[in-house]
Each structure stands twice: as structure tokens, then as C-alpha cells.
């Protein structure tokens, strides 16, 4: 019995690693196939991200929104709702905290400003997530379609706010005025130029992990996600919990947007939605909806992305190819049948072996 559990756990890791390895291999094959100088390009893709402290710093900076969005999607995924509203929350929360920040100016110290803006981001996220969540709860409307449509609407709303309320006419591109220094998170780790946003992200990893595994709400959420009928029969309010989880996920997406603006930008300048919500889903899938594993998934994704960027700048390969790789990763990790035959054979063998040895000892 114990052995079965071990095999399952090991196979789960093997599956994810094998999925990543296959996807990575595909990436390398693409590079080899289309590059004029494949050896150099592959080297750049694998080692490039570690080639300077600055690039290592970029990996970490890029992993910050991935972590927070991954945590956000952990909530949605935990209760089995593919609510993708995080995509546009990320954008609008960034927009609104910039607006608030510009209005407040430098009158507040950073120690007050940053938490305040995070809270505002979270509120924006929860309010926006309320729409698809309530439609899911009360109208049984398809939460995926509704959230995707809302994403298109909200992205336009953010663009409107940017254009009409905070656009800096003095710059050549569409962007807001420069944000006050009190909301620009300072750099840490010297040469690596890592934004201190990573600290915020890690704090939330800890908070969400505690929430998932140590609080009664986290327990409820996981039970509802695992078997809603059972949850109802033992007296949990299944609809209410899955609703609340979606709001919490929305709030985190808001925090993610706010943190990203404060960590990596001096102006709000997103004119289209950024794809972070979907990246969050990828991270949550990689982390198997376990918030503790989210940083690993986020760092891996950031590493691959920076690798693609390096290849893009130093070679002839556009970084978009990485999105194909991401798709393959999700599919391989999510495919139930991927390696399941192998796993079942292993379990069968170990059970047989156990029976044999039991016979032998008698």
C-alpha cells in the first residue's frame, strides 16, 4: 500500500518533468530547424538567461507577476472553475493604482503607499471577479466564456482611463505620467537589479500556502474542488465556497497587476491585455494547484521566456515560439493518459511483488 502511494507521487513528478523535457526538446528542435547558427542559438537559449547578473535578475523580475497570477489561478483551479478574468484584472488593477498613485503623488511615504495600492489592486480584482463569479453562481452561465468576453470589455476600459485621465502628452508613445517615487519599488541585490516586488510575491506565496493548508477556508475549498457532492453532504456550502474562492483569486490578480506596475514600470503603458492571466493558468497547472510549488513553476516559465528573449535579441528567432511550447507543456501535464499506462504497470508490478513476498514469508 505504501509503495503504491510512493509510485503515484514519484510518477506525478516524472510526468511533469517528462512533459517539460519533451516541450523543451521541441523548443530546441524548432531552434535547430530554423536557425542559421543552431549551436549558438541553442546555447543562447539554454545558458543565455544565466549569462549575466542582469539577466538572472530579469528572470526573477519576470517571475514576480507569474507567481502572483499563478497563485490567483490556484484559487480558480482549486474549485475547478476556469475563470480567466485575472487576465483583465491584471491590466485594470495596474491602471487604477497608477491613477490613484498619480493623484496622491509623493505625499505619502512608501511604507504606506505600497500597502495602500496593493489593497486597492485587490479590491479592484475582487470587484471585477464578482461579475463572472455571481453569474456562475446564480445563472449557471459558462464562466469561461463570460470571463473571456469581460476581458475584452475591461481591457478597453483600462485603455479609456489611460487615454482620457492620465496620458502624458509629452511622450511619443501612449503612457501615463511618471508615477511618484513612493510607489516605485526599490531595487535589491545590486547588480542583478531585482525589484523588491519579489518580496511581495514571496510573502503572498506564504500567505496563500497557509490559507490553502492551514485555514478552514482552504480546507473547505480543497474539499469542494475534489468532490462537490461530498462537500455538500458533509454540510459545506459548495456554491458559496466556490464563489468566495473566485473572488479571492480575483483579488490576487489585482495584487499582481499592482505589484507589476510598482516593480517594473515608471508609467502605466499597457495598451492591450498582457497575457499574464493565461501565464498564471500555466503556472497553476505546472504547480498542480499547490501554491507552495508556484514559485518553481513561475521561475521555470520566466527562465524559458528570458531564454526566448535572449535568442530573439541575439539571433533570428522571434520569441513568440515560446507560446507554442507553453501550449505543449499544459497539454502534456494535463493529459491523464500521458504515461498513465506506464504508471499502472508499475503499480501492478509492485502489488504483485508485494503479494509474492507475502506468500514467501508465510
Amino acid at each position: 500500500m505504501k509503495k503504491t502511494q510512493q509510485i503515484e507521487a514519484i510518477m506525478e513528478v516524472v510526468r511533469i518533468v517528462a512533459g517539460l523535457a519533451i516541450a523543451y526538446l521541441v523548443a530546441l528542435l524548432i531552434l535547430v530547424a530554423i536557425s542559421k547558427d543552431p549551436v549558438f542559438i541553442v546555447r543562447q537559449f539554454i545558458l543565455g538567461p544565466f549569462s549575466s547578473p542582469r539577466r538572472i535578475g530579469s528572470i526573477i523580475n519576470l517571475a514576480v507577476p507569474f507567481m502572483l497570477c499563478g497563485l490567483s489561478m490556484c484559487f480558480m483551479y482549486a474549485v475547478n472553475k476556469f475563470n480567466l478574468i485575472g487576465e483583465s484584472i491584471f491590466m485594470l488593477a495596474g491602471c487604477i493604482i497608477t491613477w490613484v498613485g498619480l493623484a496622491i503623488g509623493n505625499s505619502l511615504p512608501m511604507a504606506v503607499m505600497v500597502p495602500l495600492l496593493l489593497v486597492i489592486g485587490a479590491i479592484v480584482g475582487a470587484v471585477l471577479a464578482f461579475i463572472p463569479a455571481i453569474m456562475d453562481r446564480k445563472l449557471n452561465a459558462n464562466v469561461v466564456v463570460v470571463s473571456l468576453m469581460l476581458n475584452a470589455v475591461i481591457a478597453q476600459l483600462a485603455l479609456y482611463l489611460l487615454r482620457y485621465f492620465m496620458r502624458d502628452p509629452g511622450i511619443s508613445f501612449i503612457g501615463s505620467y511618471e508615477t511618484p517615487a513612493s510607489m516605485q519599488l526599490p531595487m535589491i541585490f545590486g547588480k542583478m537589479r531585482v525589484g523588491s516586488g519579489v518580496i511581495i510575491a514571496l510573502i503572498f506565496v506564504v500567505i496563500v500556502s497557509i490559507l490553502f493548508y492551514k485555514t478552514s477556508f482552504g480546507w473547505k475549498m480543497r474539499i469542494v474542488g475534489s468532490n462537490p457532492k461530498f462537500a455538500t453532504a458533509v454540510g459545506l456550502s459548495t456554491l458559496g465556497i466556490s464563489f468566495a474562492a473566485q473572488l479571492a483569486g480575483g483579488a490576487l490578480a489585482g495584487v499582481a497587476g499592482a505589484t507589476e506596475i510598482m516593480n517594473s514600470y515608471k508609467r502605466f503603458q499597457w495598451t492591450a491585455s498582457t497575457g499574464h492571466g493565461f501565464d498564471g493558468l500555466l503556472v497553476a497547472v505546472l504547480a498542480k494547484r499547490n501554491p507552495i510549488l508556484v514559485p518553481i513553476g513561475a521561475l521555470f516559465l520566466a527562465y524559458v521566456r528570458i531564454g526566448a528573449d535572449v535568442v530573439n535579441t541575439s539571433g533570428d528567432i522571434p520569441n513568440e515560439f515560446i507560446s507554442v511550447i507553453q501550449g505543449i507543456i499544459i497539454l502534456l501535464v494535463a493529459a491523464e493518459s500521458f504515461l498513465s499506462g506506464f504508471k499502472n504497470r508499475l503499480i501492478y508490478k509492485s502489488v504483485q511483488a508485494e503479494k509474492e513476498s507475502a506468500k514467501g514469508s508465510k
Partner: protein
Amino acid sequence: MAEEVLRMQGITKIYPNGFMANKDVTFGIGANEIHALVGENGAGKTTLMKILFGMEDCQQGSIFINGKEERIANPLDAIAKGVGMVHQHFMLLPSLSVAENVTLGVEPMKNGLFDYEAAVKNTQEIADKYNFKVDATAKVSTLSVGQMQKVEILKALIKGAKILILDEPTAVLTPQETEELFEQLFNLRDSGVSVIFISHKLEEVMRICSKVTVLRHGECMGTYDTKDLDETKISRLMVGRDVVLKIEKEDPKPKEAILEIRNLKRFNSFGKAVIDGVTFTVHSGEVVGIAGVEGNGQSELSEVLAGLSDFASGDVILNGKSIKGLSVRQIRDKGMAYIAEDRMVEGVAGDMSIEMNIMADRFSKKNYKKNGMFVDARKIRKETQQLIKDFEISCDGPEQPVRMLSGGNIQKVVVAREFTSGANFILANQPTRGIDVGTAEMIRKTIVRKSREEGTCTVLISADLNEVLECSDRLLVMRKGKVVAAFPKANEVSEDTLGEYMLGIREMTPEQMEGLL
């Protein structure tokens, strides 16, 4: 005797979980014969028929059709060899027409297209041939249940079925529809189709079948001419205990009423009463058993009592308060514990740990929390470990996912939670189904012990006669959504008597049950 068209010889079927559903069953039917297959729930009738129809395989035994040995690997094989089956739950497509349903899989074609006119014509022809009155162009969703059944039978006939299996065909029919069905079965028989008729309704068996085969606990009790038997004799063959289980227990000392059910009614989505005016009271310190053939309202009653379903009228009073409109949480807080009929659906969350499953009903309560929102992990772990020990759950530890346990151990997880929730009303629905003897005994003894020592009141719904006769103090029998019999002492009821009430051969009057409800 007419020549034999089908013979199933020495069929043995063991399910992967070790349950032996058929034990060396031999069963044969002749041409032009309506042959009844009777037995209690779980006696192996449906399994036997699924083997014949290619939906299950068997470990031993062989099937002969018209004297020739055949291997039936799947339903297509069965259909090709002239076997047709009408399932208890209809396999129909409501949005399609009768003709489309009937011809699905053997669609007539013209110029590469589905020939709807031909489908209608073929359907109408075969319907006329056997004197079935259906409109081939009507949508199935507009039909009555009786007509839907005709469509099912036509589906089998159009594929050339010579042996027709009907799994409890009259369970869903009105008396008039049943009469019509019987007429049609006689027609079929006279035109050369052999019918296997699975039923619980003995008067119907006596009326239309010439032969009857009785199964009990997976074994064949023999094939008889119906003219040599009467209903009481069949009932004795069907209902019986292989091993009589004895549970030592003191006489109950019922005290105050804890659960009162008053004239409870509930309707299904077709507007049929599935609980039809049930009234009874359960007191502190007693176990009330509910016996009955499955599908007579026991599951629906259990859903209402567990708070999982609303009811139309009447009332359920638990510890002095009505449960009408209360959530499951509120009913549990009033003192209800629930051992669900299907443990993998409502009893556990398979992917979650043993600990979370055992604590699922209580971890959000105040005394299991610290600082308002955190679960008190230490206390929970300590109690889980204690419960694992108390209930002898064999596992690797509290963190192990429940789905890795054996059926008996999973049920121990369920009862470890429900028996220790502090409830004074335990609703146990099939608490020992499909689990090992040792665990079953532990669960039964605990139910009795809790009623004696802690004064809990228990409603025990079970299809297992041993269980219901030995564990219960009072015993009620449900049939067609009603309580049709009540006995003051369950262990003095003979299985023969019980069978007669379960199968509707006898029924008690309200006066006879006076004071026993």
C-alpha cells in the same frame, strides 16, 4: 418441452473487487416462452443478463444459442446473434423521433443519405407486425413512459432480436400500460420471440410466465414451471439468508422521540410520488430498520433526512425542530449524522487525505479552530490518529489519500467521522454494502452499541436482510413510497414473512401498524 434457444452453462462472474456476482449459474430458455428471472437486489440477475448481452465478461461458463456455443464480446455481437435488451433506464434520445431512435445503428440509406421516410416505414412495419401502436414520426420526448418502452422494444426487434431481455419493464408503467405490455409480450411469444422477464412483481410473473428461474446470492435456486409454484413459494426461494448472523443485544429502552416524520411526501420530476405519506417516529435508544426492494423510496427518504433534497409536504422534526428549509450544516448541527449510500460519491473525497475526510464535517467548527480562521492542526492530527486507531483503519497514516484504501477501510473512514460527530440521530443507508465481513460486523455492532450506551436513534436502510433483521429493534417495510408493514421486534420476523411484504404479496392495514410507527 419446446426446443431450447438459449442455454447459459455454469456461469461464474467475480468482479475485480472480489465480489462473486454469479456462482456457477445455469439457465436455459425455450422457444416461444416467457421466462421469468427473479431474485432480490444483488442476487445477480442483472449481471447474468449483462453477460448475455456482452456488457460484462465472465470467468467461467459458456453460452449456447440454438445449440451452438457462442462467444459474446460486446453488445454488437449480442445483437448480431439475435439477443436484444431493454434496460431498466431507457437508452433513448428524447430530441429525436421514434423512427430515428429505432433505426439508430442500422439506419436505412438512400443515395448515401439517411432515408428518413424508409426509417419511418420500417419502424411502422415492424410496429404493425407486432401490433405496437406508436407514431413513428413523433418525438420521443413527447411520449409517455409506456410508449418509450415500446420504442425500446422496437429498437431490439428491428435488429432481429429473437431473445428479448426485459429488465424490470413494469416498474415504471401504469396498470393500463402494464396490461398493454403483456398483450404485446404474448404477441411476441406467439411470433417466435423468447422473452426473459426480470421482475420483483410475483403476481405478474405468475400471470404471464410459463417458467421461472430463481437466483439468490448469485446462485441459481432452480428453474420451475410456474404452474407448480405459488407466490409464497417463489418468495421463499428468493428471500433467505445463507448464514444467519446473530448480534447479541439487550432489549431496547426507547426514551423520548428524536426523529418524527409526519405524512412526508416528495415527487420526482415526472410528478410521481416517490415518498407517499410516510409517517414514523424514532426514539432515543432504538434502531429502526427499513427493509424493502430497492427503488421503493428508501433513497429518496434518506436524501430528505440528510438535507440533500427538499420535500413537498408533511414535516420532519429532528430534536423538536422542523428541518424544512434548513441547510445540511444546520441539520447536522441539530444532531444528524449520515452514512451515505454510495461512499465514493457522498461519503468521501477520494483524492483528499484520510485526515481531511474524517474531519470534513467539523474542522470549521469553533473548537477545531485557532485564532478564528486557522485549523487547529495539532488537535486535528491527534484526534485523527486516535480515530484511525479506534476504528482500526489500516493505512500508512493520516496523510494518505482515501482512494488508495480498500473499500472496507474507506467505509471505516466514513463511520469514523459519522459515529463520532456527536449526533444523536444516525442515518445509515446501506452502511455495509460491498465491504469485508469484519468491517461490516464492526459497523453493525457499533450502531447497536451506540443506541444502547449513548441513546442515539438510528434509521438503518439496508437491502441486506441479515443486517436489517439483526441490527434493528423495530422494522418497517417500504414499498412504492409507503410504509406497508411494521414489526415490533425485527429479530422475530422470519425472512419468508418479510419477503411477502417486500414483494407486495401482503400488506398491513394502518390499524395493524397502529402504535408501531
